[in-house]
Structures are given as structure tokens and as C-alpha cells.
């Protein structure tokens, strides 16, 4: 499997895998680095070593990705908790307010009930000088129904019969 991998990598044009093409390049390199620092000693790299490097690079990438993932997860969890706690705080505040409002409503309902009691109505009416009727008189409607008044008809612009 390894040679196939190397071969497939070569075909993608990576710069370090074709040993055949390395020799001319090495010759064209200057002996010293432009900055004056000594050059790294050049040597031929075997396919096995390249494969090993590749595996290590992948492992490193994996570690970095895992770490990043872990950090992301932890950060996300922290953010989620912050939101949850803020929501809980708000919920607690609303609950406390509801509780207070319910108590206030109940208190006001009780006050209204106290004000509406027949005993109080009687007392207040007496204070206002209201008096009770001595008897009740019932009005009896005529058998033919109630006649419309002339004012009403006139207002609608109609004429009384025979007018």
C-alpha cells in the first residue's frame, strides 16, 4: 500500500517525493544560504522515511484538530451555560414577579370583595342619604302595545294618518 501512496502523491506534483528529480535541483542550489547560515546537509530520503513523515504529520494534524475541537466544545458548553443561566435568572425574576403580582391581585380582589359586600353597600347608601321605596308599583302595558309618540314620527319626517 505504501508505494502506491507514494506514487499517487507524486502524481499530484508534490516537491519532495521524486528522488530522481532531486539531484539536478540539489546541484543548482548555492553552497551557502543567502543569509550566511550554513545549509542543511542534503541527503537522499527513502520512501519509508517519507511515509513515516506523512504519518507523523497526519498524527500532528489529528492532535491539533482534536485539541481545537475540544476547545471549541468546551467554549460552546461555557457559552451555552452562560445563556442557560441568564435564561434561568430571567425565569426566576419573572416567576418572582408573577408571584408578587398574583399576591397583589389576590389582595386587590379581597379589597373589591370587601367593598362589594351587601353590608357595606347598605351602610354607604345610608350615608349618602338614599331611602328605600315603601312599596313597588308595577306599570301595565296596554293590550295594543305602546303607541309611538308624535315627536318621534315627526322627527323621522313621516305624517300621522289623516293629517
Amino acid at each position: 500500500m505504501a508505494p502506491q501512496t507514494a506514487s499517487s502523491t507524486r502524481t499530484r506534483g508534490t516537491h519532495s517525493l521524486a528522488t530522481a528529480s532531486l539531484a539536478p535541483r540539489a546541484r543548482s542550489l548555492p553552497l551557502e544560504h543567502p543569509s550566511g547560515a550554513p545549509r542543511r546537509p542534503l541527503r537522499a530520503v527513502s520512501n519509508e522515511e517519507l511515509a513515516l513523515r506523512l504519518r507523523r504529520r497526519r498524527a500532528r494534524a489529528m492532535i491539533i484538530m482534536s485539541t481545537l475541537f475540544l476547545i471549541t466544545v468546551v467554549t460552546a458548553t461555557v457559552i451555552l451555560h452562560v445563556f442557560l443561566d441568564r435564561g434561568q435568572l430571567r425565569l426566576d425574576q419573572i416567576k418572582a414577579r408573577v408571584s408578587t403580582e398574583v399576591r397583589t391581585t389576590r389582595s386587590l380582589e379581597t379589597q373589591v370583595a370587601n367593598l362589594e359586600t351587601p353590608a357595606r353597600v347598605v351602610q354607604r347608601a345610608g350615608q349618602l342619604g338614599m331611602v328605600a321605596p315603601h312599596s313597588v308599583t308595577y306599570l301595565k302595558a296596554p293590550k295594543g302595545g305602546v303607541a309611538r309618540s308624535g315627536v318621534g314620527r315627526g322627527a323621522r319626517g313621516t305624517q300621522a294618518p289623516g293629517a
Partner: protein
Amino acid sequence: MNSARRYGRRRSAFLFVLMATMLLWLGGQLADVQVVHARSILAGSGADQAVKVIPATRGSIYDRNFKLLAVSVRRYMVISDNLRRTRLASQAASLLSPLLGKSPAQLRVLLSENAGYVVLKRMLNRAQANAVRSEVFGHLNVLSRVTVAPEPLRVLPNGNLAAPVIGTVRMDSAGSLVGTSGLEYEFQKLLAGRPGKELPIGPSGAANFFGTPQVIRPAVPGDGLVLTIDNSLQFEVEHQLALEIAKSGAVSGTAAIMDTRTGAILALANLARSANGMVVEAPSNLGLTAVYEPGSVFKIVTFSAALQNHIITPQTTFTVPDHVVIDGALFHDAEVHPTQQMTARHIIAVSSNVGTIHIAQLVGKTLISRYINAFGFGKLTGIGFPGESPGILVPPNRWSPTAIGSTPIGQDDAVTPVQMLAAMNAVANGGVLVPPRLVRATVGPKGTIHPYPLPPARRIISASTASELNGMLQKVVQYGTGVHAVIPGYKVAGKTGTAQIPIHGAHGYQPGAFMATFAGFAPANSPALTAIVVLNRPHDIYGGAVSAPVFSNIMQYALHLFRVAPSGAGAPPPRRSRIIQAIPPGVATTTRLAATVSATGRVNSGHP
């Protein structure tokens, strides 16, 4: 460089392995807590942490128009844990004295008691409680042992109005209200709700992230109870009854008004004279828990049996002397009169005992007994009231030789006033007995109204029999013993009753002690309301003289309140202005005003 790289890689790998191990460990711990040892941890959690009960708010009781009759409100009490600090009692007493309205000396005594729970003051309102809390926080070094705790209070906005019906409550050890009598007791489960649970804040408590108590299970408030009682009618009925008790010198009295069609009790007044002579609410619901021999009002059963079985018609004529002897026992009419011809209609109108006994002898004890049972006597009404009495009936096989004389005139069997009312209501309702009821609906915590199921009605006499009896009972009010029950503008039917009171635990009757009753309905041509008034030991013993005027007053008010149309022509003029006469000076104006103002100012649901 290679070694440095290698070292870096190793370090990364080590960190990865470390983190993975930690994650695995955390996962393992989670699984251990949540799965492996979940049950044991849950069981042990309650053992070392005191779970505090959150009392549920008790449901309110309303009248038929949703006006509050009983409501629970939160009050506060100030408690001191004297075992924590006792050295600064004097200072604490001085600080709390102006807030609690107690002298420093009194508080000093309380604060010096060697107890961990001393109540310094109860029933503080919210403002007072907050003032105490502020004082405690301001002087923690002195008042750290003082705490303010909530406690429930049952408030009756109308005072003692209908108190024997509503009932009473007490506070249990958990701080919840528990019904001890009346409807509060009967509907305890419904009204109480479900208490919640929370972990209190404290060293052993499990306060949540924000320092508030951790609620394990929230409290569910109790359901509300909507009664059939009408607030203003109840007030008027109690007022009129109180006036008559005071005027007639009665020991106690009961009055009730019922919706003819539905059996809903619109008012149920129970009053008694206290030791100092004041008329106050009776200690119990006499209308349902007390029995009495009803007297002549019971004759409707005898006449129903006779009419239903075609033994008599209203026009059937009898020769009636003023007395008759049965097995050595003398039965006589209320008034001395020569032997005369009387129709059945006239016999009931003037409440002739002798005439009724003649009819009863024709009917026979078996049939009479069957009709007594059919009218619901001897059984619970089904109203659902604690301590309701079924009455006391003598079975026909145990009737004494004189029972054919005493039972048909209401002097053997004992009934409750509400049973008697239901029986009269059956006549008004065309022969259909509607069980009385006190509860109209229940209200869920979120305001959902659930109508209370109507008890099943049953026909006990035919509509024609009921109609005939209705006509005969109208004569009672027109010219018979119940003329004081007349209501201007309305046709009224009813029956008076004046019964002797038996000696408790012995044979015979108390001399000079009578129960005066009037039961009737209006408008007689289209009955809408049925009422009963019972007075215990009035000076003027006759039901027609003391109970009928009260019936007239309360029925008149009720008819106007529920906007029942007058009967039309034929109604006699008022015989006297009882309303004004019955009310003492200074009370008359305001009392009648209550009726007028509430009748015009309230929103009625129309016909009861």
C-alpha cells in the same frame, strides 16, 4: 531540531492522551452517578437534606355570581429561635417592640423562652413583614435569630354571612389550611390543592445557582368552588330572619330559597340567639343538620297521596268536627268550630287537622308511608353537606295506633328544613323532585370552569296532581292560614306549619314550645322560586303569623332580584307594610336600601 520536534510531538500526544483519559473518567463518573448508583443516591438525597413543604394556596369560594365568599391570603408571622442567642433579648425586644405592637417587656419574656420556635407576632401584612425584615437585616448582630415566615389566612369578605354553610378551617402543622366544617370540610381535597417541595437555603440546603431555594415540585393551588348561593339574597334573607327572631323571641331560625327548576339553593340562612340575646350565625347548618317535626306543612304529602290516587279531589266534601279521638288520643283543630262541611281545598287552606286525618284514614298508612319516602324524607338529599341528617321516619310496621292521626299532620316524623323545602319544591315543579344543591361549579387553577353535575330529578306525583295541589295551596295564602305570605303583584302558594317540639329522650311534647314554619313558592302560576322559613320557639307560635311574613319579604326581594315577572291581575293589594314595620327605627332605611341598590347595581345572570 529533530529531537525538539520529537519532544513537541510527544508532548502533544501526552496532552491528547491526558485529555482523553480525563474525558473518559468524567464519562465514567457520569455513568456511575446517573445510571449505576442513581437509585441509591436519589434515595439518600432526601435523608440528609430537610425538604421543605411549600403550602398550596387554598382555592376560593365564590357565590353564584363569582363574588368572593372565602379567600386565602398570605400573612406573616415573626418567629424567634431563642436557642441560637439569648443574651441580647432586651435589645431585640426594644428594636421589635414598635414594629410588632407589643411592649418590650412582653417581647423580652417571649425572647427569653428556652425554645427554638417562639412566635412573637402573627398575622402581619406584607408591609409590616417587610418592616420587620428590614429591621432584622439592619441589626443582624442582635436580631439574627428572628425570622419572618408566611402563613395563610382564610378571609371571609362578607364577615359571617353564610358562615355555617361555608364552614371553618384550621392550620395544620405544615402550614396549610384544612377544612374542619361545612363546605370547607366537604370539599377539602378539591380546595386544598397539592403542596410543593423545595430544598431550603442553608448550610445543608441545596440552593440553586442564584441562591433561591431549589424547587423540587411546585405547589399546585386548589380549585375554586362556585356555590349556588347569591350573596345579596343571602344577606337579605339573614337580615329578615334576624329581625323576626329578635321580634318573635325565637331561639333560632332557618330560611332557605331554592330555584324551583334546578334545585339550586340561592340562600340558606341559619341564625340563633346567643347567650347575651344577640342574634348571630348558628354554630351549624341547621337547615341540613337539624331535624324537627314539621307540623301542618307536612300535610302536602297526605294530600298528594290522596289526590294522586284519586281518593279525593279539591272539591271533595267532608264533615269535619273540630276534634277527633283516635285510640284514646285527642286531635283537634287550632280553632274551635262547629261540625261543618269542608271541601278538601278548604281543609288544607285553613289547615284543619281533623279534616286531614279523615283524608289520611281514607288513604291508609301504607300509601302515606310510600309517599313520605317518595318525597325524599328519611333519606339524605344528596346535597353533599357534612353531617347532613336524613331525618327520622317511623316505618309503617312500627306505627302506633295513634300514628294515623299524628303522622299525616306532621307530628311523628322528623325532617330537615331543606328536605321540607325540596318536598314543597316538588309540588311547585309540577311533581318532579329536584335534589337540592349548593355547588354550581368548580374553577381550576387557571380559571377553567367545570359545571358541577346536576343530580338526577325524579317524578313523584303527576303534573295534574301537582297542579291541583298548587291551586289548593294558593287558597292557603289567599284566605287561609298563610295570608301574611302574600306578595303584592305575585300569586303565592304555600303552607303553614305549627308543630309541637318533642321532649328530648322522653315521650311527649314540651309544653308551650313550637316550631313555626312556612313553605311556599311564587309565582304560583309559573313557579320560579321556592322558600321555607322555620322559627324555633317563637313567642307567637303560629307559622302563619311569624314565618309567613318573613317568607313574603325574602321572596319579594328574590323575585325582584331575579327579575321574575309579576303574576298579573288578581294579585291582592298588600295587607300591611311589613317591610317597614318589621325593621326597627334606624335600621329600616339602610336595610331596604341594600336591596334596592344591589338589585339595580349588580349584573345578574337573569333567572336563577
